[in-house]
């Protein structure tokens, strides 16, 4: 298959998924409502307890963590959407067409990037309302957003694989909770690492969710002066570490998801 076909076909598939976002606004409402809820819950309910102060500083700290958690959860849409397409026979229709086979998965992951961009915009506005501010340069901030999106894109390929492995949207959703909750909570997303017991702390220091959060905080200028330097290499070089993980995940899961696509759909 020629390369232009893959791209053209994937963009046709992505367009289809984006139309769905437009047609079912509930979907977008719920994917954005839950992060808004998280921002408010953590900022106002836990914020005071965690910091013991007025919570203002915690909100600066919190937002990047919420961003990371939310875009990672967004990846589950990839898996659930694919599982739904398998169930409804849409994938069979695609497979009977002379299109590039990998465009089905690629198109899906493309459209989820668009979904994540929309979600990030909504959350950023919510963040601004509760007092979060970007204090870095425009380009640093843009790099922060880009890094979040790249990392989420890689994660969406894990869920493309899960979606092909267990072709039922409900199972994908349950599986995602089991994977994503520990990953996003045993990290620096919501609390500083030094509050955790040692084994968890070590895990969290090397957890790529921590590094993408750390990177976003640095790039948004959300780390107050005088904060002690992180102890792990991963958190000292969060951008590089996050990109390494993204590349590794893509290198493993793009072929794996495509192989699973061929197996699952030709039963």
């Amino acid at each position, binding site marked *: 298959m020629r390369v232009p076909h893959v791209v053209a076909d994937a963009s046709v598939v992505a367009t289809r998924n984006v139309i769905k976002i437009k047609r079912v606004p509930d979907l977008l409402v719920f994917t954005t409502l839950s992060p808004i809820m998280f921002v408010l819950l953590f900022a106002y309910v836990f914020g005071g307890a965690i910091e013991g102060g007025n919570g203002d500083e915690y909100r600066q700290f919190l937002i990047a963590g919420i961003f990371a958690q939310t875009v990672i959860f967004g990846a589950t849409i990839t898996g659930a959407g694919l599982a739904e397409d398998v169930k*409804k026979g849409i994938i069979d*229709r695609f497979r009977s067409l002379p299109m590039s086979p990998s465009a089905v998965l690629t198109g899906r992951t493309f459209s989820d990037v668009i979904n994540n961009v929309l979600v990030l915009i909504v959350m950023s506005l919510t963040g601004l309302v509760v007092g979060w501010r970007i204090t870095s340069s425009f380009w640093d901030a843009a790099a922060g957003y880009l890094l979040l999106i790249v990392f989420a894109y890689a994660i969406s390929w894990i869920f493309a694989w899960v979606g092909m492995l267990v072709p039922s949207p409900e199972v994908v959703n349950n599986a995602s909770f089991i994977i994503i909750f520990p990953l996003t909570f045993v990290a620096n997303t919501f609390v500083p690492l030094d509050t955790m017991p040692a084994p968890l702390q070590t895990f969290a220091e090397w957890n790529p969710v921590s590094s993408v959060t750390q990177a976003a905080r640095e790039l948004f200028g959300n780390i107050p002066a005088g904060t002690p330097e992180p102890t792990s290499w991963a958190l000292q070089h969060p951008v590089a570490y996050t990109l390494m993980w993204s590349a590794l995940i893509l290198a493993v899961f793009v072929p794996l998801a495509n192989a699973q696509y061929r197996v699952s759909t*030709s039963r």
Partner: protein
Amino acid sequence: MSDVAPSIARMGDSIIARGLVKRYGDVVALDGVDLTVPTGTVLGLLGPNGAGKTTVVRILTTLLRPTAGSATVAGADVLAEPARVRRHIGLSGQYAAVDEYLTGFENLVMIGRLYHLGRRASRARARELLENFSLAESGDRPTRTYSGGMRRRLDLAGALVADPPVIFLDEPTTGLDPRGRTEMWNVIQTLVAKGTTLLLTTQYLEEADLLADEIVVIDHGRIIAQGTSDDLKREVGGERLELTLADGSQLPEAERLLAPLGLGPPTLDAGRRTLLMPVAGGASTLAETLRVLDGTSIALDDIGLRRPTLDDVFLSLTGRTTHDEDADDTEGRQS
């Protein structure tokens, strides 16, 4: 093909399948199926649920690899050149595979673009098809607002976007109400009149009877009969005498009394209180039947003679009616 000098007819075959076998572990879904569909004709693949019809379609449309066997569709080898096959076929599946969030128009444009027709040609083709399938007015509504019949028509339209020479329709009318079914039949007949080669699977015998040039009856992954609908009916022979009793418990007695009049053994359906039997002799058999039953306590709700249908064909070939698999013994059937 290894034939050195293929016959003229052979060269004009759009679908050729040889020895198709599909096994899932110990389960044999297909057990050596041969099919030949001459270009421009309609083959009806007929069988009950689970007979292997969909498996045949999935193999021929490159969705599934057979365990053994070979097939060519539109001159391309299904196993060796699946991409070439896909350029020349249209598939409309058992479940209407249309995207419910897209409009009918968007669905067809998407398919056109994935056939690489280009944006403009895809849009023009989509409008044309919506017009041809009486969907023009609803073309800009999301398809989840469509009726079952409209979805099926749209799904079929999807199979026709690139005007492929060979089309596969997997149970195109399953689940449709009688009106939707008639509409679908009209659409398919128009298609056939244009000379498209069609492989159609169905559980409905009257559908195969109406639409297909040749019928292949498949059961448990094997071909059990093939020929034109007339061939099959002739094979079964005679007319059918059908009695409905007022009291179903009297069926065995009626069977005993009437069996001597039949060409073959009667079939009883306790749930519907009916007795069905192949007979010869037309109206005189009817009179004879009434005479035999007169003076017994057996009361009739209905009696009639009819030409054999393909249902009878299936019954005489397999000893089962086409709906046995679904209904199993829930109706307390005796035989």
